[in-house]
């Protein structure tokens, strides 16, 4: 498979109080197109930092982050914004939807960034919210809201979706529905997925598991076969 992302010897240092902390320590990783990568680690392992620098949301101290040969680490903030607009989607633990817009309008917020011709209704149907199209956020459950945020991210047809603890605020049943949605998107649209989690069960849904600790990749495991979300152990 073709490489989508190449992370080459990336380090990230930041100042916390008077001390310098190494959030990432010479990390190298390749992500293939259409792959589902799960980055697993405990709190403070550097997994979210790796997601942030890879997606251009944060800067690196050294190294390279290449997308189809282009090093985005050297991009200006303006260029990074433009890059994210065209290529990347984001899903966070807290859904951060616009509370005064309904489901359709929130997805349209994402769709209006892209140049694709996908019908917003089709995207809403993809995430299984066709009956809730005109509802407002306070009328939806947590899982439903998370699916709206997925639809919003998907609406501009990104090449890569970054998901930071997408099920962190959800119960098992709802969380598994969300994971099924992510897999469905990956299979239908060939969207590369980078999922960050502390839940080892979730790691089984991906093609590869990247284990991290203290800012380093300590293990890389290839899943021979993806496990269906309904079969994964939770917690």
């Amino acid at each position, binding site marked *: 498979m073709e490489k989508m992302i190449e992370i080459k010897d990336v380090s990230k240092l930041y100042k916390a109080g008077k001390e310098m902390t190494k959030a990432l320590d010479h990390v190298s990783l390749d992500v293939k197109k259409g792959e589902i990568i799960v980055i697993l680690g405990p709190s403070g392992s550097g997994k979210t930092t790796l997601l942030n620098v890879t997606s251009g949301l944060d800067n690196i101290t050294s190294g390279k982050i290449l997308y189809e040969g282009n090093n985005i680490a050297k991009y200006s903030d303006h260029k990074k914004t433009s890059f994210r*607009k065209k290529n990347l989607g*984001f899903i966070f633990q807290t859904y*951060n939807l616009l509370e005064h817009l309904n489901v359709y309008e929130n997805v349209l*917020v994402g769709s209006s960034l892209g140049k694709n011709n996908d019908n917003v209704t089709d995207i809403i149907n993809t995430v299984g919210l066709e009956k809730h199209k005109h509802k407002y956020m306070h009328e939806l459950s947590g899982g439903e809201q998370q699916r709206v945020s997925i639809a919003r991210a998907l609406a501009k047809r990104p090449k890569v979706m970054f998901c930071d603890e997408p099920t962190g605020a959800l119960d098992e049943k709802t969380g598994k529905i969300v994971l099924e949605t992510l897999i469905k998107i990956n299979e239908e649209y060939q969207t590369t997925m980078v999922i960050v989690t502390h839940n080892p069960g979730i790691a089984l849904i991906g093609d590869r598991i990247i284990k991290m600790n203290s800012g380093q990749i300590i293990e890389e495991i290839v899943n021979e076969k993806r496990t269906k979300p309904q079969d994964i152990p939770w917690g």
Partner: protein
Amino acid sequence: MKLLFINALKGIRKKKVQMIAIITLVLLSSAIYTSMNTSIDRLENEYYDYLIEQNVEEFSFTPVIDYSTDITGSEVDELLETVFVNASESEKEVVEMYRDCLTGQCELNDNVSLFYNKIETIFKKYQADLIVMQDEMDKLAEQYEFTYEIESAKVYKEDKYIYKAIVYDTSKKINIPYLIEGNYPTNDNEITVLKDFALNNDLEIGDYLTINSVDYKIVGYMFASDNIYPLISISTPFFDNKYNNIIFMNEATYQEFSGVSESVYSVKLNETNFDNRANFSSSGTEESTDNPIGTFLEEQTGVVSFGIDSILRIIRTDMIKSEFDPNRTFTEAFMYLLLGISVFVIGVITKKRIDDERLQIGVLKSLGYNTFSIATSYLVYPIIGSLIGGIFGYLIGILLNAPITKLFTGYYNLPINGLEFDSKYLFNSVLIPMLLLSSLCYIIALFMLRKKPLDLLKEGSNLKVNIFSKMVTFITKPLSFKKRFKYSLAFRSLGKLLIVSLTSLCAGLLIVLTLIGMNLFSSMIDKTFENVNYDYVVSYYTLQEGYDENADLILSKESSITSIVDSDGNEKTFDEESADISLIGLDQELKYVDLVDNDNNTLVSSLQNGIIINSNVKELLGIDIGDTITLADNSNLSYQVVGIVEEYFTSNIYIDRATLCEDLETTLSYNTKYTSDTKYRSNSELSEEEINSISSIIDFVDLKRNIENRIEIFNTVIYVIIGFASLMALIIIAVIANIIVEENKKTISLMKVMGYKNKEISNIVLNIYTPFVVIFYLLSIPIMIEILKAIISMITDDINMAIPIAISPFMAGMGLVGIMAAYYVAIAISRKALNKVPLAVALKRE
């Protein structure tokens, strides 16, 4: 971007208090702006049309006659056959003696100047001075290209009423009267009156008005077009539409009418140039040779006299212009003040909104929305506020325009016709606030959204501790936990603290404006009249000699200051337009006049050492004790200032009378008398000789009443403005209190979870900004005083009047009580919102 706008628009529902504040502030500023400007426009347009249609005079003057050389015996003979036919026997004898002297048949030995004074008085009484000058006037009219007419009137005073009688003459070409209603007074004992006078005295057309025991039938209402501001008597400088009246009558009725006569030549240039009219000040000559009026007066000095009568006439026709620019300036300044306050409130709303949606904005930026498009969506607040507030403010302004115009026309005799809408005020009412508020909102939004997406997505800023917070923690160590917690909450965000402080400053500015404005003019009048112990000021046409044991004898002379030198010998610069003064010569021993300074010290005895100026002169020209001033005169008189008397009307300089007479090279004489002799109450109690020599009598009882009535109107306007200002202060304080709860929702919720009761929480959280409200209120006092001084100096520049701006400690204390009362009321209301904060807020991740 459209969706972001929709999101922001729907979010307005949650910011009701703040949006209402914005709309109210914009509405108030638009209403005031529209109503005042529309009224002034109506007045101004009508005024210039009226000047043309009624052919109102450019200016007036009286001739300067040297009675020893300018008139021949044969001319006097002719006058004895014509105008002096109705003179008394004693007057005829004096005139015949004058003729004989002119023809060499007799010689004058003693009291020559007094004799000529008598002649001048008699000639003026019968307008013989104007008739004698007719040939000369015809030549001047041809040379300077003007037409002229003799304007005569008689002024009669009866108790509080002052009547000015004018002949209704159909052949009049200058100052054509304007009939409002009814008929012209063509028959004997028929008169027209001013409509407001009739209304205020329950009179109608067809009723009778009795003046000096003569009944006159009212046949119509008419304006004298040269009395746009009907300054009938110097005794009533503010037109009193209940007691002052202008009556027109036919020639025969006029001849029988008793009253003090006044006559001038009224002049109309053949080609009216209103720019010249605007340049022509009441001070007299203009140096510019482009100004034909100024040129005429300058070249004909010595032939024409531009005296008090002429100045009064200029005031009557031109004073209304003093309403236009100052009122426009005041309105615009006030509008921008209100908008300035709105700017703060919009800043608060924008910042709060962005803070609340920080996480959502972080995601949007992550997805690829740029700062500019996100910032633009927040313009919905200023746009909505400006649209609603601006349009409604404009409409209210249009409605208010009628009563405001009526307020003006209560004082100006100007026919006001229908309203003309000017759409420019609608555009300005909406566009100016929109531009101002949108600009600030956009700048704040851009500033706050400059952060990277990750920074916006991070856990709440509660974790950050700035250096001031650390300092406060250190300083407040000895205090109780609650007090330390309070101050740490206040200082944790300097931005919020700054906003609360600045909005408290604005509220303070408005409250101080209220306190100063409430008593502004009344205290001015009280201070000015405090030491007036006399009831009448009697002015004479000519210099008088002699002594009156019941009066203070004054020699007054108009002059102007040409230079001011300080005690170190340095020349001071000063506003030359304010340099005209009245020089008042007083005796050392006085019965009525008392010159008192700010500290209540009597200054009269200082007159032997120098001159005393009044506080109006001091403020307008920057003169201090010790300065030497030089006056424009033949001998360039210079005097040192030894005292300042507290007086806020007119520009007076007091000097020893004997010194002044000596400097002017005349015998010890006077032309003004200050007295309480009741014979000056009414014309009927004076002898004919005295009536003929008196040019005016100012009744101070009437004057004070007249000024107080006028000031009452000023005060009403100020109270309206104060009402607006107080309302705005309340809005601002409510916004501050509202913000405190919203800003600290998480803390409030957490404290509830921990077990604190609502009362305890409100004591800690709601009062965190109390010290800052107090501090910034106190700061607002000197700031508002300086702002008002600047505004007042802009307005009073045209009317040469200094208005004292000050606030007493008691009033300042009252203001503090007021602002704290409003603050605690707002906090009490906010307690409701605090009590409603749910515990679940504490459990949410930020």
